[in-house]
């Protein structure tokens, strides 16, 4: 530690720290534009000039390392003169359009000009004008306002890994642009809106909607992947106007994925269900809540005598409180089939363990970032959990070797050390070879099942790296989890982890997937969605999902709903499909409209409060369940606050199986070509599917099958008959694999437990 003096105040610092960081730490303000704590130092704006005693000229604090005894003045006449001069230069070409600029009121340039600038500039010549570019549906550009700090450019180079903007041209003609007129495609592009210190890059969906000072900021938790990123929901008159990240080093750092940032447009969608609806004689009637709830109880009661005939399908994005109350309400009546694992088709692990085996991250995100060797098994991580991908990218940039086993050669935003692209069976076989290679390396017995594996040099290198890296992890992603061989993927990955000393992270996907396991929103009787559909359910309760789109059971589920006597829908959205199958539809609040808790991928219970008002008569689900409990004359449903539900839920978590290599599962093979479902970034849940800007963005799903089969169309067999989809010939897809986009109406009949290629 050394000591320096800033404005007469003694401050401790590490030799070599940048002056601006030391000052920030001591809360001594220094203005800046190009500097950002997560980006490299560019030192191009010169706004951070300060006086350092002994230096002939003012020095940029962002690029000046501190030395012992340094004496710094941030507000001396010399420093002020330098800051004023820089400010004047920056304003030469900056338009004075603050009244019509969305950044107004939260603009770094405005603030700094006010604090450090002159009241008038000497410049009276023409200002330069820079044409704007259409860079897609998420980001609006006003490039005349750009001050060339290059934060947005560095973000692309250093953080997202996709340099989509560049500083093109030079001197007076320099412009920030994609140059070729492309749209921005990064899955985390919205962060440049936050980074841009001026109004050059602003949120397109939020454009001209509200002023920063008119809105109320509510701290909350993001709901569209399993990380539970920390966010701030900004509301105006109780309506969500935008979502921005909150700093949290352990989870999202300062970033947010575009999915979590722009999904809110789906919350404000016109499709929201705003009144309870009941069907009588084929007609839908609006209801008062009291009547609707009484009718719900009437509909439900007869089935409760036969609890095995009731099935409940719930969104894994429902809160802990909601899931817990559902379980409490229904378990009390013997209904055990409550399921949130709507996209899993292989449940052999649970059978082997005798209880549900939950996915989860055993490593924290900073630990993942520090890994030296990473094996990704069946994962398009960038599109599954964008900010987890960032951590792996950081590890790779620091020298970690990342290898993948995938069914398609997905583009990563970092260099892969090696890869095997093959069908699921071949990938599992590769895992077996790796297990054998690792066993040979360690001189231990070769586990049963891997005896026939033939080890090549490539495999040896993979295994060796896992063994020898002090920090190694195997991460099992969504593609593996949703494949028919999920259990094999997990078991062989776990065995490999055991042998090599690597950790195993089975990556949860949805906001409260882990919470759902913990509070028992997975069947308690060894059942699962597959067995539920195979049994003859008379009544279904569907909660928070579009049943035809949110599962991989397509036509099979549709037929089950059609055949049931009763379907009760608790839904945030009105839809033709729900109207066609339901008997009653109760409007529920979404996550910003209720207090609740999500358990994230690393097992953190993260609670949040109400941020916005539910539309019309929609109510938080936990309150609806409380009343239903009362109407069913049940004890213990007198909660006043969601907190009370949470306390109870916490005290009653379920015992779960863990991912272990010594489980024995029955063998399964899958025939080729194997049809696998693919979830695009923006088809994963009802809210993002209804966010218009996201649906126009690069990550939106297209109703096109991808395969290495040379055919214009592919016909898939579904339980509802064959469907024909356009096929995109794609060499990056492994032979023998057909990838079907899920979550789209065009593929709503595709049932992944019962699908085959009929013709191509």
């Amino acid at each position, binding site marked *: 530690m050394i000591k320096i003096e800033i404005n007469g105040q003694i401050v401790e610092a590490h030799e070599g720290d940048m002056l601006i960081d030391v000052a920030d730490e001591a809360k001594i303000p220094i203005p800046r534009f190009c500097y950002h704590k997560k980006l490299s130092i560019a030192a191009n704006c010169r706004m951070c000039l300060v006086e350092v005693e002994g230096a002939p000229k003012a020095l940029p604090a962002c690029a000046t390392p501190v030395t012992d005894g340094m004496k710094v003045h941030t507000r001396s006449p010399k420093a002020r003169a330098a800051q004023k001069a820089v400010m004047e230069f920056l304003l030469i070409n900056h338009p004075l359009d603050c009244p019509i600029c969305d950044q107004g009121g939260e603009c770094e340039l405005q603030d700094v000009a006010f604090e450090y600038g002159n009241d008038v500039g000497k410049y009276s010549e023409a200002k330069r004008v820079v044409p704007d570019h259409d860079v897609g549906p998420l980001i609006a550009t006003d490039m005349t306002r750009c001050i060339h700090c290059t934060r947005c450019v560095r973000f692309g*180079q250093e953080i997202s890994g996709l*340099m989509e*903007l560049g500083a093109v*041209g*030079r001197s007076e003609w320099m412009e920030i642009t994609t*140059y070729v007129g492309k749209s921005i495609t990064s899955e985390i592009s919205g962060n440049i809106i936050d980074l841009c210190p001026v109004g050059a890059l602003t949120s397109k969906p939020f454009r001209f909607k509200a002023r920063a000072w008119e809105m109320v900021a509510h701290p909350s938790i993001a709901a569209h992947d399993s990380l539970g990123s920390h966010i701030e929901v900004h509301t105006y008159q109780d309506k969500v106007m935008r979502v921005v990240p909150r700093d949290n080093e352990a989870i999202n750092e300062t970033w947010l994925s575009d999915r979590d940032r722009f999904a809110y447009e789906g919350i404000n969608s016109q499709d929201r269900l705003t009144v309870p609806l009941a069907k009588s004689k084929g007609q839908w009637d609006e209801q008062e809540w009291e009547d609707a709830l009484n009718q719900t109880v009437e509909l439900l009661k007869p089935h409760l005598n036969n609890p095995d005939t009731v099935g409940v399908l719930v969104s894994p994005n429902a809160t802990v409180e909601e899931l817990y109350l559902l379980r409490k309400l229904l378990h009390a009546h013997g209904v055990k089939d409550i399921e949130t694992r709507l996209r899993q088709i292989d449940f052999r692990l649970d059978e082997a363990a005798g209880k549900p085996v939950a996915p989860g991250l055993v490593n924290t995100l900073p630990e993942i970032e520090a890994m030296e060797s990473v094996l990704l098994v069946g994962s398009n991580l960038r599109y599954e959990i964008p900010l987890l991908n960032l951590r792996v990218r950081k590890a790779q940039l620091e020298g970690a070797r990342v290898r993948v086993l995938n069914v398609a050669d997905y583009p990563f935003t970092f260099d892969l050390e090696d890869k095997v692209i093959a069908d699921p069976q071949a990938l599992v076989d590769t895992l077996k070879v790796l297990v054998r290679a690792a066993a040979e390396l360690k001189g231990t017995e070769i586990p049963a099942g891997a005896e026939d594996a033939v080890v090549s040099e490539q495999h040896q290198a993979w295994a060796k790296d896992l063994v020898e890296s002090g920090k190694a992890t195997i991460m099992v992603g969504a593609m593996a989890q949703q494949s028919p061989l999920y259990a094999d993927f997990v078991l062989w990955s776990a065995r490999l982890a055991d042998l090599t000393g690597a950790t195993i992270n089975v990556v949860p996907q949805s906001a409260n997937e882990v919470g759902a396991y913990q509070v028992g929103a997975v069947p308690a009787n060894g059942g699962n969605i597959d067995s539920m559909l195979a049994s003859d359910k008379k009544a279904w309760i569907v909660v928070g999902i579009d049943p035809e789109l949110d599962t991989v059971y397509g036509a099979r589920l549709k037929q089950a709903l059609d055949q049931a006597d009763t379907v009760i829908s608790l839904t945030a959205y009105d839809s033709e499909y729900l109207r066609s199958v339901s008997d009653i539809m109760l409007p529920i609040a979404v996550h910003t409209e209720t207090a609740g808790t999500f358990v994230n991928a690393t097992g953190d219970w993260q609670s949040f409060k109400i941020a916005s008002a539910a539309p019309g008569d929609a109510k938080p689900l936990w309150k609806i369940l409380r009343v239903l409990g009362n109407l069913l004359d049940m004890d213990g449903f007198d909660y006043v606050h969601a907190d009370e539900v949470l306390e109870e839920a916490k005290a009653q978590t379920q015992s779960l199986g863990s991912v272990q290599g010594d489980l024995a599962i029955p063998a399964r093979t899958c025939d080729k070509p194997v049809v696998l479902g693919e979830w695009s970034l923006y088809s994963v849940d009802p809210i993002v599917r209804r966010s218009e800007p996201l649906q126009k963005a690069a990550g939106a799903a297209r109703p096109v099958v991808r395969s290495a089969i040379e055919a214009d169309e592919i016909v898939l067999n579904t339980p509802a008959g064959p469907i024909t989809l356009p096929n995109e010939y794609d060499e990056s897809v492994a032979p023998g694999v057909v990838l079907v986009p899920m979550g789209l109406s065009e593929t709503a009949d595709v049932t992944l437990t019962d699908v085959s290629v009929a013709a191509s």
Partner: protein
Amino acid sequence: MKDTDFKVIKGEVKERIDRWISHYPADQRQSAVMPALRIVQEVNGGYLTPELMDEVAAYLGMQPAAVYEVATFYSMYEHQPVGKHKICVCHNISCLLRDVDDLIEYLKEKLGVDIGEVTPDGRFSIKKVECLGACGEAPVAMIGKEYYGNLTRERLDELLESLE
């Protein structure tokens, strides 16, 4: 990009670029970006296109935008077609003092093209450049790799005549 996707960087062009790449450490291929751009510009008749820059990016393992930055920063890279003879007329202080503006007007008139345009026969285009470092002979122009100093209207007439 696969090898077969390279339309221009193959054969002799590839060899020439590879020679430059070999001057730098193996993990710093991008150091060859400037000569690579120069070479592909040359074989493309004197100017770059986004496709060419993308090829250079793919070949050197760079992000396309990083190549665009370089290619738009230096004035010797062209982004529009140029004449077979690109007449680069100095437009900096010494040459201006020696009335280069008059010569530029004369050139424009004589060739019937504006700055940045190409004569219909494809032979000439005019470009204004900064100090050529030959102020002693101002006004100066560079055509191809040759400098021509102490220019007058008459010298220009002769020059244009002599160029195919």
